């Protein structure tokens, strides 16, 4: 059962809070003021991009056939088990940027210190504590939601079915009115 972060595009107001929350979650001090004062820059693993009037946060999709993992010459980028997120092993990574070039979404980069690749790790340490990823829990409009494929699809199907049912009821009513 793989989990991913669903973006409810209509809710994003472009505040960039998820970016900061991501950086804080991946910092040593876990405090924005201390980070700035100590010059710590863990980088952003989620980015709010814009297209026309829309702003959309985008981060690693944790693809099943992950191009980054396939491109990695040292096996540093890999999925530990089925249904788990794609991660970068800092020890193995040589900073060659092959994954950066391979990623179709542009969501892997070299860390600000330039040594290794870094990307969304789905906040696995937070997940282990029963918390949502930092971007999800920080979003003030709840535009980001952590979902499993199953629940996400079921919710979508339910919404679609509801629409169908409503359309059918409205149609029947119309027929009734016409025949009456």
């Amino acid at each position, binding site marked *: 059962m793989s989990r991913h972060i669903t973006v409810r595009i209509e809710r994003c107001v472009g505040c*960039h809070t998820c970016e900061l929350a991501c950086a804080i979650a991946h910092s040593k001090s876990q405090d924005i003021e201390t980070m*700035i004062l100590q010059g710590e*820059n863990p980088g952003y693993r989620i980015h709010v991009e814009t297209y026309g009037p829309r702003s959309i946060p985008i981060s690693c999709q944790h693809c099943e056939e992950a191009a980054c993992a396939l491109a990695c010459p040292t096996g540093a980028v890999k999925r530990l088990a089925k249904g788990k997120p794609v991660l970068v092993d800092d020890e193995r990574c040589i900073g060659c940027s092959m994954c950066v070039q391979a990623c179709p979404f542009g969501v892997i980069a070299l860390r*600000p210190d330039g040594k290794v690749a870094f990307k969304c790790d789905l906040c696995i340490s937070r997940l282990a504590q029963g918390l949502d990823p930092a971007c999800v*829990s920080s979003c003030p409009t709840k535009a980001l939601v952590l979902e499993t494929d199953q629940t996400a699809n079921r919710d979508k199907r339910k919404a679609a079915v509801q629409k169908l049912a409503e359309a059918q009821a409205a149609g029947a009513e119309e027929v009734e009115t016409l025949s009456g």
Partner: protein
Amino acid sequence: MARELKYADKATQQMLKIAEQEHVPMIWDRYDAMQPQCGFGTLGLCCRHCSMGPCRIDPFGDGPKTGICGATADTIAARHLARMIAGGAAAHSDHGRDIAHTLHLIGENASSVYTVKSMDKLKEIAAIYGVKTEGKEPQQLAHDVAQEVLKDFGQQTGTVRMAETAPEARKKLWKEQRIFPRAVDREIVEIMHRTHIGVDAEYKNVIKQGLRASLGDGWGGSMIGTELSDVIFGLPNPLKTLANIGILKKDHVNLIVHGHEPTLSDIIAVISQEPELVEKAKAVGAKGIQLGGICCTANEIMMRHGIPLCGSYMQQELALMTGVVDMMVVDVQCIWPGLENTAKCFHTRLVTTSPKAKMPGFEHIEFEEERAAEIARNIIEEAINNYPNRKGRTTIPNVTQGAIAGFTTESVFRFLGGKYRSTFRPLNDAIIAGRIRGLAGVVGCSNPNMEFEEGHLTVVRELIKNDVLVASTGCNAITCAKHGLMTPEAAFKHAGKGLQEVCQAVGLPPVLHLGSCVDNSRILRVLTEVVKEGGLGEDISDLPAAGAAPEWMSEKAVSIGFYFVASGVYTIIGRPLPVVGAPALHKYLTEEIEEEVGGKWAFEMDPVEAAHMMLRHIDKKRKALKLKPMIYPQPFSESEEE
């Protein structure tokens, strides 16, 4: 949920537990729901001053490095900070203006319920403003002084005359630095102009104007508020009082006054004990009328009438959770609209009184000074009428604490020197001799972003342990009172030996309650008197003194901090000002500004370390003055390590 508040007083802990059990959200719950808070705002990197924006600067340098207009992080943070000063200075000064208008009313209307209670103080103020006093009746003098004082707010030429009371060296420095305030309102207006899109973008220049506006607050609006309140409502004298929610009484009509200005609450305090009203309370089955204060209104009426302190800023909802508050009357500043949510769980009526502050779900009984007594009586009667409507659970925590409070520049004088030789000499001598290490003002709000009361209590205890005499105002004062630090006995329990001796000799508590947050001007006055007394340098910045607001939250606190810095005081706060994302501004405020005005900012979340930073500063000043070493060994001392 389930906050422990391990540093808070017992009443707070008890009421919070009840709120939790009954699922009534309190300030801490709303704070938790707001997490995480926006990092751009925290760091000062968000600008909303024009509609090309909102703009935000990427603190890590990956994204935009300037706003759309090109303003840098330093410019944006400085502009925002200046507007915070404007907000704070406006709040204090508008309060001061209202008091000045009340004095004017006394001059206009002989039958006013307000009178001149302290003719001595009125004459002192008349002298500052060059108003002739000979042969004038109090009413005439009130009129003439009010006319002149009001000019300090809106005059188009000259400078704020109240600020002329500062030490000579300080005034010279302000003039050199071009930060001597010209008029209280003007400096606030000029901040708004300079921070408009495309005006002042040089961060130091923006802050200069902030300093000037803050001085217009501390040595202008606030000082006028304090001094004229003493004229109209009487000069406070040290008295015994009680503090905490336990002062409410189950069998009494409980009326809480909350906010800041004494104009209405003082009249309520006087009228509430009229036999006619007490009889009315008895007629509905109550034994009497219990008045209690919250926030700085509490400090104002406690100092002058001994009305007990029901609680500090953070306890406004908790007091309502008792279920016995028949009415809470509010005026201005620091009043949560969220009170409505708590009040509706009970019979409690919430009443706004100022045309400046109405709130959804509150009733509004508008206060007019001309009809003050009538309105006050009406309010009390409404509270009495609500007494029979009590329903459901009532819980009054059995927690109160005695305190000696109500010190002023004048009464500290008398305490120290005795009635017949009022002087600051004994205080200066005690500092020079090494009995008292220095002076500290510990003031300010509380904030749900910290452990409630840990900052206040730890800083104060650490300072008095090291023989520093602490002056306290606002919600720090209420906290210190609640926790028993404002009794003469507290000296024996918490103070160092040198401070103990001084407290014992003159009967002072080690922490002096100097009033409300507007009364921080009293601390400026005390420091001025100490300079004048001689032997400790020529200026406030020479004194072994420091200031702190460990749990600050309001714009008023920002303005207060700035006027202390501009007056030459090393000022430390817990959470940093929103400037951490602006490196040059941050360095300027915490380092370079000291060369210009003698005071500077420091930010420290650890309260013990904060107190030690203040002590280091005090020691630095003692050394510069070549004062004697401390008589008794100090728990915190770095000289041995050198």
